């Protein structure tokens, strides 16, 4: 904006002139002309400069490094995936991806600020640059990848949409759900899958739209809806927090593919690479048997891939614009994929999810990271 004294000067001259301009009109005329000129120039300058600033973007990595912390879009609270614990520290397998990226960039997994986002606002917030990446159980679809200006960099949990009902209803299959009221989070792929599924099976339903997972839980428990539908993982996570988890069951039908993974903005492939390989490093870590406990010991391994991954053989970090020990930092501070899974959602947690599809390819799952070379 032009400086305020320019404007003030301009108008004050006009104001004075009204009373005294007959005395020395020409002096004032000149003064006014100069004022107008300077006002114009400053206006043009500010407009030109501001559009130039708005047009240029530094690389995300530089922005993150300069800021000193990673801004990570997370869930508003989904136990096991992304939620603050009793001490207010964010935890979960989605959160671990953010921590892995922070460990890779800063060498310190705690340098993350979590921005809780509802499913509705998440993409807009990422697009606008308020967060550097999104890691909050978000399904990778074509239109999101292509049309929304996002780039999905991998899958950290293979999921599918399921239905949860109260056992009292006596329902054992999703095909018996005709006429039911269904609680559903707005702005999700599940919303569209649900419409498709009921349509394809010639059934009707009443949708009860809710904003967040906790609102859905409240509406479902109050009996506003018969069914709560979302990704099966989300159903398990919700159920774990109910007063009587055993009174609710997840129906056997899984009606969709929901590959959940972290995403970044289109147009900064270098940053996308860093997030992609941070996740891959966790998966490869599991493949190679490297965990948070044995990183140091593995530095002297005979396996060349282990040495490449841990930076004992230099050069790979520089390709990403990071230090060579980036992956070692991830594995020592966050752990490998298996550690993250078992700690947050595995069979020994209240959420109690089996590895299933999310086991490594060599253990019967479909988790598969490209080779590290």
């Amino acid at each position, binding site marked *: 904006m032009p400086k305020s004294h320019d404007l003030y000067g301009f108008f004050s001259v006009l104001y004075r002139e009204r009373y005294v301009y007959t005395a020395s009109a020409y002096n004032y005329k000149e003064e006014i002309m100069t004022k107008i000129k300077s006002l114009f120039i400053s206006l043009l300058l500010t407009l030109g400069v501001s559009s130039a600033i708005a047009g240029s973007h530094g690389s995300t990595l530089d922005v993150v490094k300069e800021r000193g912390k990673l801004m990570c879009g997370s869930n508003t609270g989904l136990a096991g995936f992304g939620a603050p614990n009793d001490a207010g520290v964010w935890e979960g397998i989605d959160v671990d991806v953010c921590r892995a990226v922070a460990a890779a960039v800063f060498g310190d997994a705690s340098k993350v600020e979590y921005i809780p986002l509802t499913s509705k606002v998440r993409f807009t917030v990422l697009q606008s640059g308020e967060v550097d990446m999104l890691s909050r159980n978000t399904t990778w679809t074509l239109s999101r990848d292509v*049309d929304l200006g996002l780039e999905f960099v991998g899958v950290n949990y293979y999921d599918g949409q399921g239905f949860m009902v109260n056992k009292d209803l006596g329902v054992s299959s999703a095909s018996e759900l005709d006429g039911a009221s269904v609680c559903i989070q707005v702005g999700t792929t599940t919303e569209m899958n649900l419409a498709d599924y009921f349509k394809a099976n010639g059934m009707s339903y009443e949708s009860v739209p809710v904003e967040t997972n906790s609102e859905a839980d409240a509406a479902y428990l109050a009996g506003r809806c018969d069914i709560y539908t979302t990704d099966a993982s989300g159903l398990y996570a919700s159920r774990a927090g109910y007063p009587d988890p055993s009174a609710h069951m997840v129906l056997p039908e899984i009606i969709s593919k929901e590959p959940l993974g972290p995403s970044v903005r289109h147009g900064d492939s270098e940053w996308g690479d860093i997030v992609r390989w941070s996740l891959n490093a966790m998966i490869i870590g599991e493949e190679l048997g490297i965990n948070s406990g044995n990183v140091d010991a593995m530095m002297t391994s005979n396996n060349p891939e282990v040495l490449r991954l841990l930076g004992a053989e230099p050069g790979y970090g520089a390709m990403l614009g990071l230090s060579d020990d980036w992956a070692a930092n991830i594995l020592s501070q966050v752990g490998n994929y298996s550690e993250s899974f078992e700690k947050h959602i595995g069979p020994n947690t209240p959420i109690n999810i089996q590895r299933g599809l999310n086991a490594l390819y060599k253990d019967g799952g479909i988790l598969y990271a490209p080779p590290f070379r």
Partner: protein
Amino acid sequence: MQTSLIRKIIFDEKSRSLLVQTLVIGLFAVFIYLIVQQTAYNLEKRGISSGFDFLNMSAGYDISIRLIPFTSEDTHLRAYFVGLLNTLLIAICGCFLATILGFLVGIIRLSTNWLFRNIAYVYVEFTRNVPVLLQIILYYSILLHLPKTKQAIPIFENFFLSNRGLFSPSPIFKDGFSIVAWSFVLAIVFTFFLKKSLKKKQEVSGKQYPIFLINSAIIIFTPIFVYYIMGRPLDFELPVLKGFNFKGGMVIKPEFIGMLLGLSIYTAAFISETVRSGIISVSKGQREASQALGLKSNLVMRLIVIPQALRVIIPPLTSQYLNLTKNSSLGIAIGYADLVHGFGGISLNQTGRAIEIMLMVMLTYLTISLTISVFMNIYNKSVQFKGNA
């Protein structure tokens, strides 16, 4: 020559102000142009699609609160209209209820009865000092704790109240019902003229007729009479508990009831204050003079006080209507499928066209608000003092 032109522009007050105004408008236009350019450039640079082509794509989601048929295969444009109608529905019902409640409370606050007066006082101070969003959520939560569908409370046998809404019989119109409807319209038109002629007679003869009673009787009994002559061309479909929910009949969803209660109870508090100030603004002398002329107290109110109070009431009442309409966008908090929730929320999320959709939604609210203003201004003119005074 040139100097004199410059001189004229700068020192002649009229031309100078014209110049400044043109400059300001020009700069504003440049400003807007730059913003639009910059936005389009940034969107393109980030690989985000833009444009309004998404309006013809199928929405892919369902809306359960709707006035016109809608399925997931319909377009986003139709979702827009579904949302718009829901917004208008809550706005109209809300304004209607808020006005009635507001007038009642406003009059009660001036009552001589200590208890009534103070109950109204507490109501006004409580509701207008608590954010409307909290009130909406409160009413909605209460509604959610009504009995579940299977234990629904029956009312008059065929109505059922549960936490999924109020289920009621829905009318089925058979052949000949349109004649009943027309007889109703005709009765209203007829009473309008009857009222005029009876008033004339009253002015000539001085004899008073119970116009209100006669007209109400005509409006109520004509359609009923025709209804029986036509052989009762109306059936009801009753709601029946089947499976998970009631089937058949109509349902008023708790989301709608929650919104309606929240908005109208909140706005009514403001309206009641407006009404109270309007009534107080009519000077005591007016009332005393009309009583001295022997008018009964309800006539004093209807003929003397209210018409004069309306002049004070209407302008702030308009802004209360506007507030209520805009507050209806809070429906998003409890899942009432209004314009902001459906089109402005779900469609936005599915298509990512934030700027286009928000512009459409904002322009829509602007249009609704301006329309309300126009009509209220016309009404306001009609109640103001006539003549040159």
